[in-house]
C-alpha cells in the first residue's frame, strides 16, 4: 500500500532518480525488476545508509531496475524484524538490512522472533570499535586502562551505546580476558552517539567505547585519546588493536542483508549472486571508500556459519552480564 512516507520518499528521490534511471536504461536487462528493501531502523542511520548505498550502486549498474524502501525503526531492529518475517515470508524479491546490533538486541529483548528466522544472504561491511579516554585523563595507554580495570572494574565508568549492544559486549569481553567477570563492569549506556560523546569529552566518565567513525573526529582534534581499536587488523595505522596489545578480543559492528524466511533455494541463490555482482563493481568499492566502510564481504554458507558463531559469542557474554 503506498503510504504518505513512501510518496514523500518518491518525490524527494525524484531528482536523484532522473539521472540514475537514464543510465540504467543503457545497461543490459536488469537481473531483478524490483526489490523491496526493508530497513528495521529510522532513516539516516547506519542500516538505512547501507540500504540506500546498495540502491544507488545497483540501480546505476542496472542490476535492479526499481527499489522500494520501508523503514520501521526501534529497539535495535526488533520492532521491524517480526513485521518483515510475517509480511514477506517466501517472497523472492525482498531484502532486509541488519547487523550485529540486532543479534544482541534479540537476545536482550527475548523477542520470540530472532535473526535465525531470516535467510542470511551477505555480510557487506564492518566497523571496528575504538576504546578512548578523555584528553584530560591521566590514563596514557591501553595498559594504564587495563591496570585500572583489573584493580577495580567498578571504579572505571565506561560510556557507550545502549545496554547489551556491541560497545557493552566489547567491555564485557575485555573484562573476561583480564580474568574478571563481565558483570563487574561499570557500563553507562547513553541513547545515541551525541550524549555519550559529550559525557566522554566532559570527562564525566573514565573511558568510552564506540564505533571508530563516531569518535574519529574527536580523536583527530585531540579531544579524545584513542587507546585501541577492536578489529582483527589495524583500521587506523596509528592506533594498535586490542589483539596486538595482548587482549584477545575482536569485536566489530557488521552489517549485511537478509532475505525473508521460507524462500526457495534458487531465489536465495539469485540474491546471493546479485550481491556478489554488486560487490565486484568498481562503483561499490568507490562507495566503501567515500563512506569509510570496511569491506567485510561474506556470502552463503560461510556467512551462515559466521552468524551462528557470532550468536554464540554474544549470548555467552550477555548471559554473564546477566542480560540474556
Amino acid at each position, binding site marked *: 500500500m503506498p*503510504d*504518505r*512516507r513512501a510518496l514523500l520518499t518518491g518525490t*524527494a*528521490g525524484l*531528482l*536523484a532518480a532522473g*539521472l540514475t534511471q537514464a543510465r540504467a536504461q543503457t545497461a543490459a536487462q536488469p537481473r531483478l525488476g524490483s526489490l523491496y528493501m526493508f530497513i528495521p531502523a529510522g*532513516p*539516516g*542511520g547506519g542500516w*538505512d*545508509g547501507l540500504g*540506500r548505498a546498495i540502491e*544507488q550502486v545497483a540501480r546505476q549498474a542496472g542490476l535492479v531496475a526499481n527499489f522500494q524502501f*520501508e523503514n*520501521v*525503526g*526501534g*529497539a535495535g531492529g*526488533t*520492532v521491524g*524484524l*517480526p513485521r518483515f518475517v510475517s509480511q514477506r515470508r517466501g517472497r523472492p524479491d525482498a531484502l532486509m538490512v541488519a547487523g550485529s546490533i540486532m543479534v*544482541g*538486541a534479540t537476545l*536482550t*529483548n*527475548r*523477542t520470540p*522472533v530472532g535473526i535465525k528466522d531470516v535467510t542470511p544472504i551477505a555480510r557487506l561491511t564492518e566497523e571496528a570499535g575504538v576504546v578512548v579516554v578523555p584528553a584530560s585523563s591521566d590514563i596514557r595507554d591501553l595498559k594504564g586502562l587495563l591496570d585500572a580495570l583489573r584493580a577495580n572494574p567498578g*571504579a572505571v*565508568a565506561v560510556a557507550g551505546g*545502549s*545496554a*547489551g549492544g556491541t560497545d*557493552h559486549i566489547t567491555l564485557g569481553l575485555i573484562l573476561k580476558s583480564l580474568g574478571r567477570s563481565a558483570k563487574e563492569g*561499570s*557500563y*553507562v*549506556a*547513553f*541513547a*545515541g*552517539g*551525541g*550524549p555519550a*560523546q*559529550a*559525557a566522554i569529552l*566532559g570527562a*564525566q*566518565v573514565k573511558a568510552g567505547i564506540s564505533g571508530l567513525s563516531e569518535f574519529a*573526529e*574527536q580523536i*583527530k*582534534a585531540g579531544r579524545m585519546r584513542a587507546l585501541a581499536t577492536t578489529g582483527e587488523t589495524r583500521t587506523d595505522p596509528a592506533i594498535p588493536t586490542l589483539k596486538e596489545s595482548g587482549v584477545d578480543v575482536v569485536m566489530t559492528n557488521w552489517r549485511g542483508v537478509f532475505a525473508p524466511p521460507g524462500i526457495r533455494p534458487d531465489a536465495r541463490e539469485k540474491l546471493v549472486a546479485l550481491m556478489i555482482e554488486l560487490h565486484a563493481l568498481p562503483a561499490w568499492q568507490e562507495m566503501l571508500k*567515500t*563512506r569509510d566502510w570496511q569491506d567485510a564481504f561474506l556470502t552463503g554458507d560461510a556467512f551462515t556459519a559466521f552468524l551462528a558463531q557470532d550468536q554464540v559469542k554474544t549470548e555467552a557474554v550477555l548471559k554473564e552480564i546477566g*542480560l540474556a
Partner: protein
Amino acid sequence: MDPIAGLQLGFSHALTATNLGWALLGCFLGTAVGVLPGIGPALTIALLLPVTFQVEATGAFILFCGIFYGAMYGGSTTSILLNTPGESGSIITALEGAKMARSGRAGPALATAAIGSFIAGTIGTLGISFLGPIVVELALKLGPAEYFSLMLLCFVTVSAVLGGSALRGLTSLFLGLLLGLIGIDLQTGQPRMTLGVPELLDGVNVVLVAVALFAVGETLFLAWRHVEGSRQVRAVGRIMMSRADWRRSLGPWFRGSLLGFPFGVMPAGGTEMPTMLSYYTERKLAPPEAQQEFGTTGAIEGVAGPEAANNAAAAGVLVPMLTLGLPTSATAAIMLSAFQSYGINPGPLLFEQQGALVWTLIASLYVANVMLVVLNLPLVGLWARILKIPQPQLYAGILVFATIGTYGISNSVTDLVLLYGIGVIGMFMRRFDFPTAPVVIGMILGPMAEQAMRQALTISQGDWTTFVTRPVSLAILLLAVAALAVPRIYGAWMRRPVPGPG
C-alpha cells in the same frame, strides 16, 4: 575567523538568489511539516537526503536549516488552534494556547507565538554566532547528576500545571510516569511492560499521548456530552495583538529565549524542559489579573514564554553540532549524516576546515528567521479562520487529522489502537476533572530523570551523595527546594494574623 568577519562572509554567500531560494523552500516545507503532527523536521530531512547527491553542500544545508527552523514555527499552530501538538516542544504551548483560541483569542495567541519565535530564533542565532564555543564548553561540565537535578527542578515546577486538586494532579502525573516506563530500559536492554507486543518495545510516543489526551479525548468527550446539537461557531475575535498583548508578551519572549538557548546547547537538554520552566516562571511572575487567566481563558504569557523557549532551544541544538560534531537531537543526527555524504566529517575542526560553509549556514539562519516571520504573520488570519468551521465538522476534522498524523509517526496500527485507547482514558479524565497535562509531563520527564539518575549512580558506584557533592547539582537542587518552599512561606507570611490596632 572571528564572528564578525565570518558573518560578513556568510551573508555574502547566503544572499545569492539560489541560496535565498533554498531558504524560502525550506521555510515553506518546514512550516508545513511543523503543522502536521507525526511528520517532524527529522523525518523530513531524512526523506530529502537524496538531494545531497545532486545539490551542492551549501544549498542543501540552507534548505535543511530552513526546514528545521520552519518546523519550530509551524509546531505551535496546531497546538493553539486544535489542541494537537505537532512535536514535544510545543506541548506546553497547547496548555494556554488552546484555551486562548477557545475564548476567541486565537489570533493574538498565534501572533505572539510567531513573533516570539522570531525573537527567540534571532537571539538563539546570535548565541550560535558569538557564544557557541564558550557555552558548549560549559555545558560539557554537566554530567548525569546535574541533569537529574535539573529534571527534579522541572518536577517541582510542574505543580503549576497540576490544577486545583493536588490528588487528581498527582494521579495524572503518575499515570504519565507509568506510560513512560513502557519499552526497553536503556541501562539494561530489558523490555518493561511491553506485554509481548513488539511495537511497544520502543516505548509509547509522547506526541501520540499528547494528541490522544488533548485532541481525541476532548472530541470524544464533546460527542459523549451531546453538544453537537448546538451548531455553534466559535468566535474568532480580533486577529492582531492589542497594545496590552504586546506589553504582556515582551517579558516572556526574552525570558523564554534566555532560558531556552542554554538548554538547547546542553547535550542532554532538549526543548521540553525549558518550555516547562518558562511556563512556571511566567505563571509565577504574571500580575494578579493575568493569573486569573491561567488555566481558564488562557493567558498570553503562557504562550509567549514557552514558545520562545522552544525556539531558542532548537537554535541551541545546532551549537554542539557545529562546534563539536555532537548530534544531540534526531534532527542534528540526520544533518550530520548529510555532512558525511558530502565527505565532510563534522567535528571540533569543522569551523576551521569548512569555515565558509558553516558561516553561510549561520547567516542563512538569520535569513530564514526573517522569512518565517514574514511568511507566518499573514497566515495567522488564515489559520484562525479554521475555527469558523462549525464545531461538529471541526472536531471530526481534528480526529481525522490526529489519526493520519499518528499513523505517519511509524505506519503502525498499534499506534492507532493506542491513540484511541488513550483517547478514551482522556475522555474519562475530562469527565471526572483530572488534568491531562501532567500525564504528558510525567511521560517526558520520567524516563529522562530515571536514566540520568541511574547513569549518575553507575558513575559514582552507587553513592547517592553525588547529587549534593557536585556543586552545580547542589545549586540546582537548592533552587528546586526554593521553588517548592518560597511560594508557600511567602503565602503564609502574607496571610499571617496581623495584630489589629488597639
